[in-house]
């Protein structure tokens, strides 16, 4: 199944991209997705368990993903 990964701010800079498509086995979790992303070039700056949102809602690392999900890796926020 294919999911879209969104990257922002320092994470986008680290990976040199703001969006990726990843092909994952059905039933994959957020944790597995993060591990795939962390294996990409430049991703050593990502923490092992970054904050994640699935379809615009914060999610845990155990969350099971579905085809077409939009998964955002959220760097520490700094609004205000």
């Amino acid at each position, binding site marked *: 199944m294919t999911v879209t990964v969104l990257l922002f701010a320092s994470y986008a800079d680290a990976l040199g991209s703001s969006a990726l498509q990843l092909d994952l086995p059905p039933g994959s979790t957020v944790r597995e997705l993060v591990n795939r992303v962390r294996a990409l070039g430049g991703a050593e700056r990502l923490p092992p368990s970054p904050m994640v949102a699935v379809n615009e809602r914060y999610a845990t690392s155990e969350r099971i993903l579905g085809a077409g999900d939009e998964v955002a890796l959220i760097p520490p926020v*700094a609004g205000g």
Partner: protein
Amino acid sequence: MLVSRPIDPSALLERVARTANGATVLFVGTVRELNEGRAVTGIEYAAYRSMAERELTAIVAEAVALFQTDDIAVEHRIGELTLGDCSVAVAAAHPRRAQAFDAARHVVEELKKRVPIWKLEHYADGTREWVNAGSGLAVGAATEGDRP
């Protein structure tokens, strides 16, 4: 609630003005010239816009329920800002001042914790850095549940 144009705080005051209210609190956040001892010349704000709008909407709804007023308005600016520019404004009005203060504070504090907005500070020495990027584990990393 996310805007790319300058924020007019007085417009937020107008949006919460009702004769039932005896107290209105306005919070205005502006770009500061010094952060952690470094001279700042400007800030670029970036956001995950759709989620930021959703989170801001949820935060306002919480404040409406907690402090029993419908009269809350918030705007956060995205893009390039210079010193003194308004980056965020919150107006909260209530018949009584305690709830107006509390509602405004709730929105600001929760915004800073949860809304996916980031700032790239520009420094006088020409360098740029994402604020908090070096803080390692995100707040939500060890948190189970929907909210960091």
